[in-house]
């Protein structure tokens, strides 16, 4: 077992937080596979570099393992597995995004974190029934930027316990 020598450095996401008026959404965007996703900045606790994960036997397939987050042990989900994408090598750009959802602290692995951005609510549209093989259930909307599409994730649905089970079934069925 090696010691993770790099203390989990937190890349600040909070510096741009100003008073968010209700017509604006402040988001953190990240990339998983070919898609760019975004979540509300307020639900993000921190973003860490990859660190050593401890595998938990008999856990759901998308759970990569657990990490020690300053004395707190939290599960880490691989979004690629979660979205049914092919898994790939972790790179120096891989990050663990730690979010708080419904009182639980959960981390998930993304290929890379893009930026903090602000968009107008008006450019967000309801999700189409299917986006690039991802079930629309946990997509809260799609933001149409000038040059690209941003998929807004609904974290509550993404990490709610019962949905997890349901998704496992759909995955194994397909």
């Amino acid at each position, binding site marked *: 077992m090696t010691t993770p020598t790099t203390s989990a450095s937190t890349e600040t996401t909070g510096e741009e937080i100003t008073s968010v008026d209700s017509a604006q959404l402040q988001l953190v965007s990240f990339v998983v596979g070919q898609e760019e996703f975004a979540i509300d900045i307020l639900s993000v606790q921190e973003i860490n570099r990859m660190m050593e994960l*401890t595998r938990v*036997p008999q856990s759901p397939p998308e759970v990569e393992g657990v990490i020690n987050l300053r004395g707190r042990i*939290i599960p880490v989900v691989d979004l690629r597995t979660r979205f049914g994408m092919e898994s790939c090598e972790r790179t120096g750009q891989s990050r663990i995004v730690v979010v708080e959802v419904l009182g639980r602290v959960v981390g998930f692995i993304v290929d890379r974190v893009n930026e903090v951005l602000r968009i107008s609510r008006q450019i967000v549209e309801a999700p189409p029934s299917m986006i690039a093989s991802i079930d629309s259930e946990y997509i809260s909307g799609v933001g149409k930027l000038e040059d690209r599409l941003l998929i807004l994730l609904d974290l509550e649905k993404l990490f709610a316990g019962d949905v997890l089970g349901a998704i496992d079934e759909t995955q194994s069925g397909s």
Partner: protein
Amino acid sequence: MSVVDPEILQDFLTESGELLEQFDQDLVLLESTPGDPELLNKVFRALHTIKGSASFLGLAELVSVAHASEDVLNLARRGELTLDRRIMDLLLDAVDVLRCHFDELENGRGLTTPDPALLEALGALSGGAPAPAQSETPAPEAALEAGGDDEASASDTGVRELELPENKLDLIDFMVADIEETLPSLQMFIDGLRDTEDRGAVGAEVGEICEALARSVEFFECAQMGTLIDCLSIAAENFDAVDEACMEQLAPRLQGAISVLTEQAEGLSKRKVIQYPINDLSGRIADLVLGHGVEPGAELPAGADAEAALAMDAVRGGDASDAPVEEENGTPASAPETSSPTGAAAPSAPVERAGREAPGGAPKVEQTIRIEVSRLETLLNLVGELVLQKNRVGALSRRVTDDDHVCADTREAMTQASSDLDRVTGDIQLAVMRARLQSLERLFGKYPRLIRDLSRKTEKKIRLEIEGAETEVDKSVIEELGDPLVHLLRNSADHGIETPEERLDAGKPEEGVIRLSAAQEGDCALVRIIDDGRGLPRERIVEKAIERGLTTADEAAHLSDREVFRFILAAGFSTAAAVSDLSGRGVGMDVVRTNIEKLKGTIDVDSVEGQGTTISIRIPLTVAIMPAMMVGVGDELYAIPLTNIVEIVRPGADEVSTIRGQKVMTLRDSVLPLVNLLDVFDAGGAGAQKASFAVVVEVNGQRLGMLVSCLVGQQEVVIKPLDEMLAQSKAVSGATVRDDGGVSLVVDIGRLVESVSGSEAGTVA
């Protein structure tokens, strides 16, 4: 005091709650030693204090029950009544009613009116005729104490004729003389109070006098005087806890109270009952004693005297007639109690109060403080974190020590610092854990009553012997242990102990004995319930187990007694021919097992048919932090609780074999099931280290070998729960942070053993 300050109420509940528990226990004890004067006095005092505090708070319903029971005890104390079983039943019923009242107060509900039949029955015992006790004694006092209740005659000055039943008339002169003799000495003590160093001693004296007075006053059924004396006696208990400022306010008021009493006593000698509006006075005394001060505008100037106090508290309209003071008269002849605190069998009141964790308002108030459990909890969690950080520093220090590039001085200093940290952390951990320890006394104290009730119900003769109640365990353990012990004791009394006839036929003494013992054994607490009853019927259990599919006849023949007896712990398992209202539903033992497992404890059943059953429960002293063995499984590290580990061996190839699909290993002359943790944790990937060590663990008397790849060493681990997302991991009970900062999972030995023995039952003979 029409609205009770919640803080005062809480104090009352805690303090009186403890007294009530003690009262309950002492009553049961009293049943076996009826007429023990020391014990009688003790129970009387306890009840009296509860009643006194309750009347302060205006809890009329509670007071009426306490009062009725007190009358009965008073008679018993004077030897005019023998406490037989019937009376005991009534008194214990009264305790239950009081306890019910306490619950209601705690939950902010109104008090239910006590069953009049109970009051009547108690009244009949004390008053000879039921009517007076019920309608006179509790009622006037209750009305008075309801405070602010303006129909109560207590709130205004008045004189009425003294009305007493005929049988008391002869004694009036004697009783008045008694009161008049006692009051001056009380006056003397109170007068000297402000200048005395040792208020505790004065308080004790005053308390004794008050107690004697209270009895005399009770005779006259004069509620007001009773209230004032209760005031004085409660104040006396707290003298040394009252600060100077409060004392300045308190002393004149106490003097005032005495002067009112003196006048009332004079009135009694003329067959008159003199009433004063004493609500303010008694209320303010109560506030002062509890350290709350008086409301603004009611403060007395420094050096105020009794009359000033009475004027301020509106007892008297300001006409300053001198309080008559007679020459002092020595201590009352009827000083009831030697307050020697070294009663061997039954500790007397001072000890009992000081000995409990934190009785607010008791004389030794400075030596204990009450702390919210949540704060202790936080402290314990922080200590857990500290232990983890200490482990990390230790690991770093070892690395530094192994590093040749670091100069020798630094290495030594590092080692020193790290070992100092280790020691201090250990001490802190111990100290914090100690703070959470409580003796089992409180828990065990409830059981004599249980056994008593059970023996009455089952018409058996049962004696409960308690040993080692002073053993201390973590607070959480006490909470979880209560239910299992009740179940086990019920089982022993209901199924274990035979009827007196059966016992005599079997050549045993008529009286069955259940022994409840506790002791510390290493870092576990060992609690045993041993009965000398009929024992467990192996054949019946086997029959039932086969019936329920837990085993097969073939298998059962090979099982040891202990393995057979384990079946009774299974859910829904009962051999009782009929379900009684005590037990037999087969739920009990399952609850026992579940609760004990929650505490990471183990339970073991041993029995010899015809001679009795022994149930042993082992519980680790603390649940959160424990020593563990770190083992390598594949390329992950896992923690195995050290308490479960029996030994670690390296089994040779000839010692491992397979019986009907289950791997087993031979360890000396026994055969254990063997599991490979690499398989359990799916860690046997390509290139994974081969499992070469077998860690032998034991839970609930069942052993199991676990193959692991390597051994890392011992470490203290702090168990943290896993996210619900991971709850389906079967053989893992939690996770912990290692000394290198990484996360390791803690192996759930209990579930592992269970899963193996479960599958084994179907496959292995």
